[in-house]
C-alpha cells in the first residue's frame, strides 16, 4: 500500500527530506502594518485556463487567504448521462478532461464493462493502453507547457505543444477526430489501428523523447525556474492523502500510489514501468514527476507494440457490441440486433459499480448505477483535479500573488473535468 516518505528517511541520490510545514511564512522579517486588499482572480482571468474564480485577500503581494470557487464550467454531465444510452455517453466523456479524452473514454468503458461483467478482447486492451498512454503524454505535455508558460517562458511551450499536435495526429488517424475521439466502446474499441500506425507512433514518440530532453535542458536547471518552483505550494504526503489527492500531484508529495501499479487494469501488469515520486511535495516535484511519467509512458508504448497480440478488437457479444455493418446491411438478424442496440441501448444488468483508472490528473472514477434499462440511473464521476482544487487555497496561503498561477498549473485543474 502507498506509504508517504517521511522526514529523515534516507533516499537515493543523497537527497534528504526537507519538507517544510504547510502554510509557512514565505517572507521573513518584520512586516509593516498594511491594509488587506481583496482581489478577484477570475473567472475570466487570462491565465486561469478553465474558468475558476479565486478570491484573494492580499497583504501587499502576500496571500492571506485564497478562496477557490469552481463550477463555472458545470455542464451537467452526470444528469445528461441519465438521458442517454450507455453507448451514447462516450462523446460526453470526451469533454471531461478535454486534454486527454482517451483516458476518459477508457475509464468509462471499463466502468460499464465492470458492471456488465465482461472484458474487452486482449488486443483491444493493448490498443487502449497505447492510446491511453498517448493521451497521458498529451495531458502531461499540455500541463507542463502551461506551467513554464505561466512562469514566463513562452518558447518551450511551443516545443511541447508541437509534440501534442503529433499525438493528436496519431489519435486522429486511429479514431477520426483530433480531440473528441469517442474511440473506445463498451467491450472493445471502435476499430483496429490503421496501417502503419505502429511505425508512425514509434517514430513520433522517439521525436517526443528528444523534445522532452530539450525541454528538460531548457527549463529544469534554470535558476529562475527553480526559484519559481521549488518550495512553493508545499503539501505533505499525509495532507495530500487527506485531501483525497491522487495522481502526479500525490506522487510529487512522495506517496508511491499509481493505480496502474497497485490495482492494475487492462494489461498494465504485463508491462514494465516505474512510478516516479517526489520528496518535497512542491511545485518542482510535481513538475519533475510529470516529466518522468512522460518518459515512462513512452517506455510503456514501446512495450505495448512489442507485446500486442493479434485478434479481434471488440467482444463478439450481440447484446453489447453492434454487429459488423455487413451483417446489419444484409441479414435481418444483424439488422434487428443493430436496431435494438441503438434504440434500447445495452441492457446492463441492474446493479452498481465503481471503477477507477489512472487518468492524467489521478484517479478518474466512475460510479455507475443501472436498473437494467438501456441507460444509467446514475453516472457519477470522481474528477481527480477537483480534490486538488480543494487544497489549493490552503497550500497557497502566505505565498505571493505570482505563485498562484504556477501552482494552479501544477495542480492542473481542467474545467471540463472539475466542474463536469
Amino acid at each position: 500500500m502507498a506509504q508517504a516518505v517521511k522526514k529523515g528517511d534516507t533516499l537515493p541520490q543523497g537527497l534528504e527530506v526537507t519538507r517544510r510545514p504547510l502554510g509557512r511564512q514565505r517572507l521573513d522579517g518584520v512586516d509593516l502594518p498594511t491594509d488587506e486588499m481583496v482581489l478577484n482572480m477570475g473567472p475570466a482571468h487570462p491565465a486561469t485556463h478553465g474558468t475558476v474564480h479565486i478570491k484573494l485577500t492580499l497583504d501587499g503581494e502576500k496571500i492571506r487567504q485564497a478562496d477557490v470557487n469552481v463550477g463555472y464550467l458545470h455542464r451537467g454531465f452526470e444528469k445528461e448521462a441519465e438521458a442517454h444510452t450507455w453507448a451514447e455517453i462516450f462523446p460526453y466523456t470526451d469533454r471531461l478532461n478535454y486534454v486527454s479524452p482517451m483516458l476518459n473514454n477508457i475509464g468509462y468503458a471499463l466502468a460499464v464493462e465492470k458492471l456488465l461483467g465482461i472484458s474487452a478482447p486482449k488486443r483491444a486492451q493493448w490498443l487502449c493502453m497505447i492510446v491511453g498512454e498517448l493521451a497521458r503524454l498529451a495531458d502531461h505535455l499540455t500541463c507542463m507547457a502551461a506551467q513554464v508558460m505561466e512562469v514566463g517562458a513562452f518558447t518551450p511551450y511551443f516545443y511541447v505543444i508541437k509534440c501534442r499536435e503529433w499525438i493528436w495526429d496519431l489519435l486522429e488517424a486511429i479514431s477520426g477526430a483530433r480531440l473528441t475521439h469517442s474511440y473506445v466502446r463498451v467491450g472493445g474499441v471502435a476499430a483496429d489501428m490503421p496501417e502503419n500506425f505502429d511505425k508512425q507512433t514509434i517514430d513520433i514518440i522517439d521525436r517526443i523523447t528528444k523534445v522532452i530532453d530539450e525541454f528538460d535542458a531548457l527549463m529544469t536547471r534554470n535558476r529562475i525556474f527553480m526559484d519559481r518552483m521549488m518550495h512553493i505550494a508545499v503539501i505533505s504526503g499525509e495532507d495530500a492523502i487527506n485531501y483525497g489527492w491522487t495522481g502526479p500531484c500525490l506522487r510529487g508529495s512522495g506517496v508511491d500510489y499509481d493505480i496502474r501499479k497497485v490495482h492494475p487494469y487492462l494489461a498494465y501488469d504485463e508491462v514494465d514501468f516505474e512510478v516516479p515520486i517526489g520528496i518535497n511535495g512542491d511545485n518542482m516535484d510535481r513538475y519533475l514527476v510529470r516529466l518522468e511519467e512522460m518518459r515512462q509512458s513512452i517506455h510503456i508504448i514501446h512495450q505495448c507494440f512489442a507485446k500486442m497480440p493479434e485478434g479481434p478488437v471488440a467482444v463478439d457479444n450481440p447484446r453489447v457490441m453492434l454487429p459488423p455493418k455487413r451483417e446489419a446491411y444484409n441479414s435481418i438478424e444483424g439488422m434487428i440486433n443493430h436496431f435494438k442496440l441503438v434504440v434500447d441501448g445495452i441492457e446492463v444488468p441492474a446493479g452498481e459499480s465503481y471503477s477507477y483508472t489512472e487518468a492524467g490528473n489521478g484517479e478518474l472514477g466512475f460510479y455507475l448505477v443501472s436498473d437494467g434499462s438501456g441507460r444509467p440511473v446514475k453516472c457519477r464521476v470522481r474528477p481527480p483535479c477537483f480534490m486538488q482544487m480543494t487544497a489549493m487555497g490552503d497550500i497557497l496561503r502566505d505565498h505571493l500573488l505570482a505563485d498562484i498561477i504556477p501552482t494552479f498549473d501544477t495542480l492542473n485543474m481542467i474545467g471540463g473535468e472539475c466542474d463536469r
Partner: protein
Amino acid sequence: MTMKAQPSKAQPSETQPELVEIAVDGETFSVPKGKNLLEALLDVGEDVSYFCYHPRLSIVAKCRQCLVGLGDGHKLVPACQMTVQEGMKVRSKTEQVREARQAILEFTLLNHPLDCVICDKAGECTLQRQYMDWDGEASLVNHDKVSKPKKVDLGPDIVLDAERCILCDRCVRFMAEVAKAPQLLFAKRGDHTEVSCAPGEQLDHPYALNVADICPVGALTDKSFRFQSRVWDLWSTRTVCQGCAAGCDMELHHKDGDVYRQVPPKRWDLNLNWMCNDGRRTYRQLLEKERVTHPSLGGERTDPDTATTHIAEALQGLIGAEGSPIGVVLGADVSNEDAYAGARIAQVLGARLYLGDRPDDGKGDDILRLNDPNPNRAGVRAMANKDLLNTKALAEALNDGALKALLVVGDGLDLPAPAQRKLNALDLVVLSTPFSSALIKKASVVLPAAAWTEIDGTCTNAAGEVKRMRPAFEPPSHARPHWDWLVRLGVALDADLGFLDAEGAFSEMSANIETFAGASWGDTIPTQRLRFSGRRG
C-alpha cells in the same frame, strides 16, 4: 348511483379456484386448476416467449414459440395449449428449450424482410424483442426470401405488408372472435401463405385498428401513423379516452406537443385491451378544431386579469338578484374538478346550474363503445344531482328571457340554433373553452381553457368509475384548466373556492360530495419516453 373506487382490477371471484401444484424447473408453485399453462408460467414470473397467444383470443399454437418440456418426455410442447394439472413437471429453462426457441426464431426470421428501417413497429416489435432475448445469433440458412405483396391496402385504416407477417393468426382470430366480422383470412399455402381480406370485403370494422396493435410485427399498420414518427421517439401519457362515456384507459403517444396516436395500455385487464377506432381518433379534434389561446373581451384580445375583473364587475349587480338571472353551464366534457369549481362558482353567484351535453349518437356497440358521446356526464351530474337542469331547460330559460348572464364551462354545450340566437340578448356570456365553436361569436368574454390532453384531473365514466386523467404537455399560450379560470374569477369576486390546484379540488370534492366519498386521486404515472420505458414488444 354509487361511485366505485377506481380502478376495478380483476375482481376476486366469488369462489376461490381450486389450486394445484406444478413444478417449474424443480421449483413448486400453486396455480389455479384448469388454467392455461402459458398464463400460469407468466404468472409465476417465468420468461416465456410467444407470438400467437393472446389472453382475449382463442388458442391456436401457431407460432410454436412457447415450447416447454413436460415431464420426462423428450418432445417439447407449446405451453399455450396445455392446461395445468396437479403434479405437472415443466422444463422451461433447459438448454433444449432455449435451443428450440432459438431454432423457431431462426425459422420465423427466415422470410422476414430487412424492413426494420422503415417498419413502424420497429422499437416495439415482438419479433425484435424475442430475437434479442432468445436468439442473438446469425442465421445459418442460405435461402432467398419469399417475395410477397407489400403495401396492400386492406381498408380505410389498415395497410398490410405481407412479407413481414409471421402468420400468427392473431388478426384473423380478432376479427372473427372479438369483432365478430371475419373480414380477414389466410390465403395461399405453405410459405406463400398471406393474410388477406375475405373476397369482396375490406377491413372496415369499427374495431379494425386493434389488429395493428396485436400484430406482433409490422405486418398490419395504422395508416394514420404510417411513417409519422418512430415509436421510440414518442412520449407516453396514461390518461382516459374522451371519445364516449365509456372512459377507456389509454396511452397517449405524443411528441413536441403533438399527439401521434392513442393506444390501449399494454395491460390485459384494462378495457379488454381493446379500443375502438373512434376512440383512437379522439386526438384528431386537437388537430382539426381551432384552439382558443388568448382571453378575449368583446372579440378583442386581452390579458387574463382584465378578463376576470370584467366578468366580476359585470356579474356584481346580478348576484343574489330576483329569480337568479345567472346561469352556469357545465359541459359534459369537463373534468370532475372543473365541474366542481363550476358548481362552487354557481353557489357563490347563486346561479342556476345547467348541464351542457350532446345527444346520443347511436354508435354504441356491445364491446366497449357507448351511445353517449359525453365523456364525463356522470361526473358532472354528481355535482348537483337534483338541481342540475338539462340543455332543454337552458334553451327554455333563454327563450323566456329569465337569464341575464351565462357562464359556459367547457365545449360540451350543444344549443339549438334558436336558443343560440337568444344569447345575443344577454348582458354577459362567458365562455371557457379550449376550442373555437359557433358559440364563440355570441360570447362577450372568452377564456382559453386547457384541452383534455393538457389537464390533470379525474373523470367519471358511465359505470361510475372515477378515472385519472394526466397531462401530456403544457397548454398553449394563456390556456389553463377551467377550474383555474374559475378560481381566478372567484378571487375577482372576493370568494375563496377553497383550492388552488386540481388535487386540492379533488379532495374538497370528495369531502363535500357524497358520491365521490372514498374515490382515490389515482396513481402518479409520469409521462415517460417510450425509448426507455422498459422492454417493449
